[in-house]
Structures are given as structure tokens and as C-alpha cells.
């Protein structure tokens, strides 16, 4: 089976399994509605915190509220997409511990697709909705001379950002093959990462910004391309084309995460549980 064949098989299995989880969730309809609303409310509180902060100050690290809202909307929406599509991968550790991971290995479908679709939860649409609302407001409120490149960059950022976060989720899942209770470590990078990106890079220390740019390239989710759109200087002295690098960075992350996943799965299958 070639790579495209695997991708097609994986997508098909993913959709089949995700549909089963949606149906499972819908058997507890009230619970679904409550958690979906709760999800929306909790993530919404994040933004309320920002707004309250701006009641006291005019700028944060030199950025105005609509500009910070722009970063926030990009970070939360792209993270929300990744969380919806592959966020359940952090339950892999539990499946490894109770041994039910083996039941996935005897099905005729790529394992990563099955793990990604595991416990697929539509309630995660709450976060995406909230992020998209903030982003929409920010796009109207910021003062930007829109060019074709800037307009195009917004959806590109969302997709690339989702792919970068997705790669982090995948790498985190792969790490759980080695340390089965490491879901919290992964959360530090995923949930921690998205919270970090909700604030302008200027409020953080240089070393942290360097790490988030060159080591774990979360800066390419919104900081770098966002700075370009807003006409602000890049967080580090990066070349001008860096704003258009997100798709490349995302592709690199996805490739590395894929390798990590394969290595993790190989380790599991040769050492057992």
C-alpha cells in the first residue's frame, strides 16, 4: 500500500470511527449539550480575562486589544481544529495501560487514524466557535491595510497552525508509548502552547521566544505571520519571508511527528506492554 493509499484508508477509518463516537455521545443528549455549552463558556472565560486586563491598560507589550484578540483568535481556532481532529490521542496512554490498544491493532486500519478518532468529541466545536468569534471581531477591529497576501495568509495560518498543533498531539501520543502516563507532559505543550500564543511575544523573555520559534516552532502558528499582517516587527530578527513559512514549518512538523509515531509504535510492538 502506497502513502496515498494509507492516507485514504486512514481517512476512511477515521470517519467511520468518529461517526460511531458521535452516535455514542448522542445517546446521552443532555450531557452532550451541557458539556458543549460548558466548553464554550470555559474557553470564553480566557478571553474575558484578556478584556478585563485591557480595562486597566491600553496596550499589552505594546499591542492593542484588537491586535491581541487577533493573536488569540488565531491561536484558539487553530488549536481547536487540531483538538477536535486528533486531540483524543492523549487517551492513548489509558488504552496502553488497560491493554485495549491491542484491539485496535487487529483491525484492518491504520492505527494512528484509529487513535486520532478515538473518543471523537463534537463538544470541542465549542472552542473553535469561540476562537472564530474572537478572530472575526479582531479582523473587523484591527487597523490593517489589507493586501491580497495578508487576506490569503489568514486561512493559511489557521490550517498550518492546526497542522503544527496536530503534530504536537501526535508526537505526544508517540511519547506515551515510552511513558504511558505522560499525557500531562503533552498537555504542557498543547494547552500550554495555545495559552502562550494568546499573548503577544513581546511580553515574554527572549529565550522563551527563541525556543518557541526554533525548537518547538509554535511561533509560526500566529506570532510571526500575525506580526506581518499587523505590520509589526517580527518577534526575532527573522527574514521577511518568514511570515509565509508556516505551511513549510507545518509540513516539517507533521513529517517529524509521523516518524516519532512510527518509532513509538515499533517500540510498542517489539517490547509489548
Amino acid at each position, binding site marked *: *500500500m502506497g502513502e496515498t493509499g494509507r492516507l485514504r484508508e486512514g481517512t476512511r477509518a477515521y470517519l467511520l470511527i468518529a461517526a460511531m463516537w458521535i452516535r455514542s455521545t448522542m445517546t446521552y443528549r443532555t450531557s452532550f449539550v451541557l458539556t458543549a455549552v460548558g466548553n464554550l463558556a470555559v474557553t470564553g472565560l480566557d478571553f474575558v480575562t484578556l478584556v478585563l486586563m485591557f480595562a486597566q491598560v491600553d496596550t499589552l507589550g505594546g499591542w492593542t486589544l484588537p491586535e491581541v484578540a487577533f493573536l488569540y483568535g488565531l491561536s484558539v481556532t487553530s488549536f481547536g481544529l487540531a483538538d477536535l481532529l486528533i486531540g483524543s490521542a492523549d487517551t492513548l496512554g489509558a488504552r496502553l495501560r488497560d491493554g485495549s490498544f491491542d*484491539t485496535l491493532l*487487529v483491525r484492518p486500519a491504520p492505527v494512528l487514524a484509529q487513535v486520532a478518532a478515538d473518543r471523537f468529541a463534537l463538544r470541542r466545536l465549542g472552542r473553535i466557535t469561540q476562537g472564530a468569534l474572537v478572530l472575526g471581531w479582531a479582523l473587523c477591529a484591527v487597523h490593517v491595510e489589507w493586501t491580497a497576501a495578508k487576506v490569503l495568509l489568514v486561512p493559511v495560518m489557521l490550517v498550518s497552525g492546526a497542522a503544527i498543533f496536530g503534530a504536537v498531539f501526535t508526537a505526544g501520543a508517540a511519547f506515551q508509548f515510552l511513558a504511558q502516563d505522560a499525557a500531562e507532559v503533552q498537555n504542557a505543550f498543547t494547552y500550554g502552547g495555545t495559552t502562550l500564543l494568546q499573548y503577544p511575544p513581546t511580553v515574554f523573555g527572549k529565550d522563551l521566544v527563541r525556543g518557541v520559534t526554533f525548537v518547538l516552532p509554535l511561533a509560526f502558528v500566529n506570532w510571526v505571520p500575525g506580526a506581518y499582517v499587523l505590520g509589526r516587527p517580527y518577534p526575532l530578527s527573522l527574514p521577511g519571508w518568514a511570515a509565509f513559512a508556516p505551511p513549510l514549518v507545518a509540513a516539517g512538523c507533521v513529517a517529524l511527528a509521523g516518524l516519532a509515531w512510527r518509532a513509538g509504535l515499533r517500540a510498542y510492538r517489539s517490547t509489548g506492554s
Partner: protein
Amino acid sequence: MTETGTGSGTVTDTVADAFIEVDRVEKVFDVRRRTGFLKRERRQVRAVDALSFTVARGEMVGYIGPNGAGKSTTIKMLTGILTPSGGRLRVAGIDPARERTRLAHRIGVVFGQRTTLWWDLPLIDSYRLAHRMYRIPDARYREILDRLVELLDLGALLDVPVRQLSLGQRMRGDIAAALLHDPEVLYLDEPTIGLDVVSKARVREFLRGLRDERGTTVLLTTHDLQDIEQLCSRVMVIDHGRLMYDGPLAGLHEAGESERTLVLDLERELPPVDAPPPARVVRVEGPRQWLAFPASASAAPLVARLAAEYPLVDLSVREPDIEAVIARMYEERASA
């Protein structure tokens, strides 16, 4: 194929229709044990050691051994879940570890202690998923499903959420789920664990039919020796990763030098009866006495002689308990 193997006299060469081939397969685990806050000790554990056997198409084989003997490691290698550390392994001509998903279409697996069914959804939904995931042609799916529903008596359960099924009902549901794609080989891991007598009987009856009608190859691991007695003509015993016995169930008694028991009810309390060796009295309790004699020997002459010499009220012969036979085999191996 450059794979030649080394020995020409291995079992794999002599069996014509070997469906499962295991040739000097081994599995070594690296076990890390925490010995201090950060210090760890590494140790290698040989879970399966130079294991060789073949199973012909349509055979139903019992695979038994104590916990940690290497049973599930073997099954995991045969299903492609684990990669062997050495040796050669083929199921239906496929190397399981290399072509896991291709093999998945040809094997069915029932994990006795965990269900693969969808907990919150009606039973039928799990089957619909299998229908699409295994790409079973519609007509064939309906035909197989109808047959399984009939044989496993699932008709009334199809619309019931799995969480509401009893353990026995769920096991039947799980077995059906493993067979929808009409696999050529079925691995059953403790299929009757926790089931009541009626459910056990039903599952066993179904498995017998499966072997006789469809010729499905079945490898069964179990702790319930009645499963083996009632289903398998062949039994493999594994301990410490090595095959200790492979043959008919009857032969297991001889291999373990097992004994049958003759229980005598006498008219009154008497001193231990004078039995001809190798038969001997092992227990006396009031007028009841227990005699042990080799399982390979006939009981008739012994009974005739005792009946002639003693005032018998009743007697019964107890077959050896396989569990005891296997335990004795382990003891012998350990002391050897």
C-alpha cells in the same frame, strides 16, 4: 524469497497444509525495574523460547499454560500485535508483523476479558461498523450476520445497547463480531471466562459447529479445561516460553503420568483394602476408601478383584483432573 530456514527436518516441511507455522520463534522482552529514584536495572526476559509448531487448516487447538507462560505473547505475535525477536512465523502465508492490516482481514480475535463492541450503542451498530471497516460485500454480510444471529441466538439483542447485555450475551456478541468477515482463523482468548454453565455450553456448541461446518482454524487459550476436553482434539502446553506437550488430550494423561481414582463405599469401616500394586489406597474416611491407579490401566480387573474380596455397597471411578496432570508436568520439569 531468500528465506530458507536452517533445518530441513523441521515440522514445517513435513506438514502439507500448515496454516499456522511457527518455527523457532522467540520473544525477548527488556524489562526495566526501578531500583532507586532514577536508577534502573535492565534485565532480559525470554517470554517465548524457540517455539515451533504448526496448525493445519481446520484444526481446533487448545493452548494452555499457567499465567506468564507465554500464551498471550504467542497469540500477540500470531496476530501481528507484537514482532518476534527471532524465528519465522506465518499465518495463511502472511508474516503477521510485516503485514498486520492485510492479515487482519483473514483473522478473527476474541479477547475474553475485554469487549470490542461499542458500549453505548445497540449491538447491531458494532456489526455495521465491521461491515464497512472490513469492506464486506452487502449480500455476504447479510448472509453471515443472519447465520451468526441464528446460531448465537442474538436476534433479540441486536437493538440492545451493549452496556445492557449480560456477560454471556456480550461474549456471544463479541464472537459474532470477530466472525463477520468470515476469517479463516479465529483466536479465542479465554472465551468462557466468567460465564455461567448455560452460556458456556452455548459458546462451546457454537464453536464445535464452526469447526465442523466452516472448517475455521481455531486456536483457543483457556484456563477452563472443560473447554479443551469438549472442543479440542489437540492440546499444546506451554511453560516458560517452551512447548512442553503437543498432542491429543488423551496423551496428556500419560505424559503427566496421571492417575485415576477409584472410590469404594464398603458396608462398614474396614482397614485399608489390600489392592494389587500399582493401585494403592490413598485415603480412608469411615466406610469410604479412595484408591489411586494409573490412568493407562483398566479399572475392570481391579474392581472385579475388590468386589470378590470385600463387601462393596457402591463404587465410582474418577477421571484425572487435567489441571492436576499439568501441575504434575510442571513439577517434573522443575525438578528435572
